[in-house]
């Protein structure tokens, strides 16, 4: 166990540890154990088939394409940078995200978090550093004990459920203030950096923006945030759901990811020329998205419901590119903002309508960030958008 994990355990009098890996669906799996046992362990082990488990807990009938029939154990190594408290736990508990290796040290290629690391390495080979800011949409709903019944919006402080559409309403957010007080406190306890919170289009549909930063850290934060929101909601006898389409006649929830790419050596945003106009790389980035998104769509939604990824009842379609930075009617959108270097840069933000749109939140945050950014990389251009609302 790395030194700083031990120190963290001492500082916070940690009694229990959640040793976590994110699976293909973004579900936290792993082991819970006493802190003392965690400290003694020389690398926790799990079967590699954990990455072939479906969201229903089943396995594909034939797994030969992905895994040796021997079903080898994998070794989990804690990433000391990820150790955090579990603020909703009864006794002092820590969570630590782990990476997965075979006993000979090779990467487990099926592990979503490892994939994100490898994709970030592709950027590094170009001399680039990706910067991302995920925005997560979710609904608050009444507890749904019997899955055969439809979901209902929850009752807030007023004692009533929301009437109609309350986009951007402050009062409608205030309805759930006690819940959001817990969300903010839990996030602070876990170093999840929330930028803004707004009410989205649907009843009790919210969107939270995370501050931009390192892609791996933000994937970890998005992953932790989903647990956090669900836990906070449970305290107030509600569910927080990130499923793509909880209400048939209301807008779905997505996660869109603002992206920019920095030239590592200079800190310059490669999407922008020195005079602030969009660069050639910026246009290639968009072009790559247009070319590769259709093949990448399988990776974007986690769920199965067919039209989810391309529903256009409420939102603009596909990967059309908007012509203006302030136009919202397209899948890929430029947006204004200041880049890290204080240059005003148009970025591209694949709005939910394109990629992420209504993308199943249930996808692993790590995989999603990887997926999204992937295409940009390698020789494929595509990628994704960014918007640099870099909140400097």
């Amino acid at each position, binding site marked *: 166990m790395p030194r700083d994990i031990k120190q963290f355990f001492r500082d916070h009098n940690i009694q229990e540890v959640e040793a976590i890996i994110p699976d293909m669906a973004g579900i936290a799996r792993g082991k819970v154990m006493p802190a003392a046992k965690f400290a003694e362990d020389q690398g926790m082990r799990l079967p590699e088939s954990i990455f072939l488990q479906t969201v229903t807990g089943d396995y594909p009938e034939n797994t030969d394409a992905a895994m040796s029939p021997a079903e080898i154990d994998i070794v989990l190594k804690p990433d000391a940078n990820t150790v955090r408290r579990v603020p909703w736990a009864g006794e002092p508990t820590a969570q630590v995200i782990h990476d997965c290796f075979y006993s000979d040290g090779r990467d487990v290629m099926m592990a979503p978090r490892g994939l994100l690391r490898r994709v970030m390495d592709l950027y590094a080979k170009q001399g680039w550093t990706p910067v991302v800011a995920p925005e997560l949409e979710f609904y608050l709903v009444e507890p749904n004990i019997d899955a055969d019944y439809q979901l209902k919006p929850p009752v807030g402080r007023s004692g009533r459920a929301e009437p109609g559409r309350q986009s951007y309403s402050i009062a409608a957010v205030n309805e759930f203030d006690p819940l959001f007080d817990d969300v903010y406190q839990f996030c602070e306890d876990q170093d999840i950096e929330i930028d803004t919170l707004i009410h989205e289009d649907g009843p009790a549909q919210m969107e939270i923006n995370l501050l931009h930063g390192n892609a791996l850290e933000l994937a970890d934060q998005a992953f932790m945030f989903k647990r956090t929101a669900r836990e906070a909601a449970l305290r107030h006898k509600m569910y927080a759901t990130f499923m793509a389409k909880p209400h048939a006649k209301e807008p779905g929830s997505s996660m869109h990811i603002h992206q920019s790419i920095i030239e590592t050596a200079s800190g310059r945003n490669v999407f922008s020329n020195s005079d602030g106009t969009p660069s050639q790389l910026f246009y290639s980035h968009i072009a790559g998205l247009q070319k590769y998104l259709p093949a*990448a769509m399988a990776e974007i939604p986690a769920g*199965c419901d067919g039209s989810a990824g391309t529903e256009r009842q409420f939102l603009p379609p596909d990967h059309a590119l908007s012509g203006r930075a302030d136009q919202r009617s397209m899948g890929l959108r430029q947006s204004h903002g200041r880049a890290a270097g204080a240059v005003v840069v148009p970025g591209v933000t694949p709005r939910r309508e394109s990629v992420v749109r209504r993308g199943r939140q249930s996808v692993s945050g790590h995989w999603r960030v990887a997926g999204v950014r992937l295409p940009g990389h390698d020789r*494929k251009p595509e990628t994704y958008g960014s918007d640099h609302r870099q909140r400097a």
Partner: protein
Amino acid sequence: MIENLKPTDPITGSAHDLPFGLPRNLDEAVRRLRECQPLIDMLSPAFVAAYTIVKEAEYEVFLRVISSWEREHLLLNV
């Protein structure tokens, strides 16, 4: 970016009435992923193999669900 591609011209009106450009179901999306060698190279064949068989298994189970729409519109009508 590395292929130095050029995007299509920006659309100036609303894109709502344009045809769909992305796959509308998981079957089709998985098929297109498996046919996209550049993406497979980037993600690694091992990951794409694991991911696609998991998605297929999930889709099979999903298709077995009897929906309330079926009970509402077919139960007493067909």
